């Protein structure tokens, strides 16, 4: 009852017009509601157990392994194949055709016939075919530099150099994790009613979690075979710091636009959590202590976050400076009374940049698991009817939705070349999503519908002359080209965080903003853009390994390790 009373003076969720700008979405940080943390919480709470029934590799890492995760109700198995990949074939691009390791997450425990079938298909990735027994398909490449360093060191009986490890952060990086029906795998609908699959991307996160264990085991195995008696075991502290890298390209950016209801649910859950914490009238000393400690760890984390990309270097400089200001501020501020978290957030809003504001917003949730964590159940999209257009809606009502949700787009002069300089398209070459220059390349005929602002503005123009009391049915019959935008507008009318409220085809678009937003919900840290349209990240860095889940705390994404 006390919580009910506390929530009665409630702070509203932040305005979508503020939250849904690309620069802010591109400044998001992981939080308690990130999908990796939802998974590790569940694994810990439910005492999942793990086994490794098969592990057979030669000294080049060629072979296969099976890792099983046993939930209270069922078993999922990561089947991993190791390959000897010639250096010239190693590429993170979608257009690659071979990888260091390939994986599938199998629903249950695979038998010999399954393994035989998977061995013929999984190494081929997109060129192979899987069945409803498979829940994901993925692959990973080594960081050759760090892999060789770690193998050589361990084989020679010494620990790898901490600075070398820290510079890269992972021994392998995944270059695609396909789930939800891709390549013939099970659709999400087949498993959606399982509690462990209720939150988004839990299968994909489990696959990566088990992949990290496989990589740790494989590097040790190869080092042991090379070094024989001389080799040593990897220092668990170093092992713990290693995550799985991930290279993410343009394919993720369209995902956010193509799944507006799902995207809304992610953002709305986090915004709801922020609003709940900001609404608290006071804070217990233990909550304040947790917050202070995690802010200190965030400062360390920002310090060990490397990038060579000029924009990210500048963002990091500002983030570090802002987090220092925040630390100075809270050293003196009252964090216990008079809506402390709301006051702190408002101070940050007027003092700090967006990156630090979002870091703070995520940090505010940390002491309040009991209030925040249940929101994870609202992050999936179970509304299977949302795609359905309501043709009985009046023109006037759609007009109002457009004025409210797309006002930013109605203010843009879309006839100016710089406002529509880019066009999203899919290449015939392995169906790689790409971003082209509309006025320089012949890509416009292939443009994907990924410019909601431009298209909403065109819809708004054509609606102006319509009778406000008429239904949309007649309008859509005469203007089928607006069907896509009418659908989006009706969704955003009921789901205010469904739409990125920014230009997604302008000359100054930075697709990495969209990638970072999505990856922050995965729980990624240390975003390292390699260009304006692909980014490397680390997943599960500092996370517990399966055997450490029971003894590890839930704040693992916050680095505990100071710079060596």
């Amino acid at each position: 009852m006390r919580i009910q009373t506390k929530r009665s003076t409630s702070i509203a969720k932040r305005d979508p017009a503020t939250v849904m700008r690309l620069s802010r979405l591109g400044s998001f940080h992981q939080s308690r509601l990130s999908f990796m943390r939802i998974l590790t919480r569940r694994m810990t709470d439910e005492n999942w157990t793990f086994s490794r029934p098969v592990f057979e590799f030669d000294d080049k890492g060629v072979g296969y392994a099976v890792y099983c995760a046993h939930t209270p109700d069922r078993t999922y198995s990561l089947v991993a194949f190791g390959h000897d990949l010639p250096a010239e074939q190693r590429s993170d691009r979608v257009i690659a055709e071979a990888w260091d390791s390939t994986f599938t997450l199998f629903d249950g425990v695979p038998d010999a016939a399954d393994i035989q079938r998977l061995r013929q298909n999984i190494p081929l990735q997109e060129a192979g075919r899987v069945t409803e027994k498979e829940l994901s398909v993925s692959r990973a490449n080594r960081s050759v530099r760090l892999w060789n360093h770690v193998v050589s060191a361990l084989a020679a009986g010494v620990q790898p150099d901490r600075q070398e490890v820290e510079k890269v952060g992972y021994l392998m990086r995944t270059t695609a994790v396909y789930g939800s029906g891709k390549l013939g795998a099970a659709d999400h609908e087949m498993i959606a009613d399982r509690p462990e699959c209720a939150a988004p991307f839990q299968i994909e996160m489990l696959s990566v979690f088990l992949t990290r264990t496989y990589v740790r085991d494989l590097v040790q195995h190869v080092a042991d075979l090379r070094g024989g008696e001389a080799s040593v075991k990897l220092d668990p502290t170093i092992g713990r710091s290693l995550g799985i890298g991930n290279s993410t390209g343009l394919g993720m950016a369209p995902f956010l636009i193509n799944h507006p209801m799902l995207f809304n649910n992610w953002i709305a859950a986090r915004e709801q959590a922020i609003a709940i914490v900001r609404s608290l009238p006071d804070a217990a000393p233990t909550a304040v202590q947790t917050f202070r400690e995690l802010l200190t760890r965030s400062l360390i984390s920002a310090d060990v976050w490397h990038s060579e990309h000029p924009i990210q270097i500048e963002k990091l400089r500002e983030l570090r400076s802002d987090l220092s200001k925040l630390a100075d501020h809270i050293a003196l501020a009252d964090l216990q009374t008079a809506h402390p978290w709301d006051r702190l957030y408002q101070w940050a809003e007027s003092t700090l940049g967006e990156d630090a504001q979002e870091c703070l917003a995520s940090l505010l949730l940390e002491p309040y698991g009991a209030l925040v964590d249940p929101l994870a159940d609202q992050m999936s999209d179970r509304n299977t009817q949302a795609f359905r257009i309501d043709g009985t809606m009046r023109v006037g009502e759609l007009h109002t939705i457009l004025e409210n949700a797309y006002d930013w787009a109605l203010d843009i002069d879309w006839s100016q070349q710089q406002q529509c300089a880019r066009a999203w398209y899919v290449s015939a070459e392995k169906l790689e999503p790409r971003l082209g220059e509309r006025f320089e390349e012949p890509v416009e005929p292939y443009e994907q519908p990924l410019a909601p602002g431009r298209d909403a503005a065109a819809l708004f123009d054509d609606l102006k002359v319509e009778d406000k009391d008429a239904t949309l049915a007649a309008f859509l019959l005469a203007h089928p080209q607006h069907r896509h935008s009418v659908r989006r507008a009706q969704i955003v009318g009921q789901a205010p965080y469904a739409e990125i409220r920014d230009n997604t085809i302008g000359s100054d678009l930075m697709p990495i903003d969209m990638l970072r937003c999505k990856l922050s919900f995965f729980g990624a840290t240390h975003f390292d853009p390699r260009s304006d349209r692909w980014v490397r990240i680390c997943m599960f860095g500092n996370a517990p390994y399966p055997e450490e889940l029971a003894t590890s705390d839930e704040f693992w994404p916050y680095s505990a390790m100071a710079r060596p």
Partner: protein
Amino acid sequence: MMYSLNEIEAHARKAARGGGYDWGVAEEAGKAVRWLVSHGLNGAAALATHLSVMAHDGPPQALDGVWTSATGALCPLTAGVTLNDCADRLNAMHEQAMRDVTQPLLVVPFAAWAALHIKAPLTVVWDSVRATTNGYDLHIQGSEDDLNTPQTSALQCVIAQGDHALVAPALRGAFSTEVWDKLNTFAQRTYAPATEASRLLGAGAGVTDND
């Protein structure tokens, strides 16, 4: 060949777009084929055939009265989306009749979505076929030939009468690789031919992705 429903939907959406439909209509064509295939019906083949021969199909000329096309045959996709849009017109007193509809099977999913709107089951009637749906589940009666007919002279969508043993959809779909390939010839039209410049720039390479 078995396909996941997401694969089927995405493939049909791209094929409809490649076949000349606007994205919004193509999105619903994808959903429609997914819906049909999940009920074990030849939705993918119907779309493939429709895209191959649809040159003279047209949309309804007006919302009122019996729907006809100015060009001869009525397009099942544009008639279908319009049927969904006009869901509120369907009641015990008013059915929606259509003339000369090609691939009438493709209309059924749109009637399903109209049924969701009015929260009452609808029956789509043509030739010997009566397809009744509450939006999710389906009961079919009629001959296989009529179900898959390339064209019907008259189709009606009416409020369902009586009880029907509705069958829930499956979570996988099956159809021949020939149908998949036929749809693929249309889907391919949505992909830009690769050039060396787009290979280098379009996905943002330019720094090494090896380390």
